[in-house]
């Protein structure tokens, strides 16, 4: 390559550099990011799996809560109304007071029914805790 060709190449480079300097314009957002985010499909992630599991535990927890509540109420009724059933307000009040008075005995020597009630309540509480924890983490990340 001779001197003239070298000069032509240098001149070309200078010309092109000047031309492309104008092409390097900044592209403003003008809502592009928003449009992209609105169009994103749902993505399978390990966190999404955790969210689905927490919803499943909500349902299971609800059933367990209902069963636990029924056991607790049933236990109360069978204890206080062992000698007969009465709807009068004074009878209800007396039976409630007797139940509370006998509560320490129930706690120290729980029956199978009472143990099941306690276990059900513990599962429900844990489920609610996990679900709330997952919601807090999700809100932090979004």
């Amino acid at each position, binding site marked *: 390559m001779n001197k003239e060709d070298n000069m032509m190449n240098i*001149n*070309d*480079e200078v*010309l*092109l*550099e000047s*031309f*492309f300097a*104008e*092409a*390097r*314009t*900044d*592209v403003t*957002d003008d809502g*592009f*990011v928003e*449009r*992209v*985010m609105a*169009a*994103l*499909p749902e*993505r399978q*992630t*390990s*966190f*999404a799996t955790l969210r689905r599991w927490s919803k499943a535990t909500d349902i299971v927890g609800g059933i367990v809560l209902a069963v636990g509540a029924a056991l607790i109420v049933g236990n109360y009724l069978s204890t206080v109304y062992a000698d007969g059933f009465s709807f009068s307000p004074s009878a209800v009040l007396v039976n409630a007071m007797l139940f509370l008075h006998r509560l320490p005995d129930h706690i120290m020597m729980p029956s199978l029914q009472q143990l099941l009630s306690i276990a059900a309540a513990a599962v429900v509480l844990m489920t609610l805790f996990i679900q709330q924890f997952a919601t807090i983490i999700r809100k932090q*990340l*979004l």
Partner: protein
Amino acid sequence: MRSADVILIAQVVSTGSHRAFAKLVEAHQAPVRRFLLRLTHGDAMAADDLAQETFIRAWQHMRDFRGLSGFETWLMRIAYRLFLDEQRKTKQPALTIDDNSAAAQPAAFMEQSPVYAVPGAALKMDIDKAMATLSTDERTCVTLQCVEGYSIKDIASITQMNENTIKSHLARGKRHLAEYLRGNGYS
């Protein structure tokens, strides 16, 4: 790769964080859209559609990003492939200085002078008209090197072309462009 990108990518992959992905889009939307704007002859709507699809694909396949190249290089590769797919679908003829067929030189686009006046400034050259005289491959390589500043190695990673092929496209593209600019009074 920027350390900020590494943290954001990790958040997106592990937790699907929309906030982290929005930050990635914000950081890289300009070069991707600018690149596609040159490839589509300045068609802003077509370029933005392709750019949007680029980021959606990146979101869906974030786990496939291995970090061997920069994140932006990976995005450009996706953008380039989408552009080629779109070209194949629409069967658009490439506008090239070497092709004399009428179909390759749309009259409405090429008949107007590429040089235009800006009040109080020297004559400016319409970049898209000038770049339209190059073949698709030449325009791609010239845009990536001269506008976006990528190295030959990065261009090879984006386009999956051989480095020698890229050098050849660059030399030819720049020569054609310089001739065109001088021929139209640009200096």
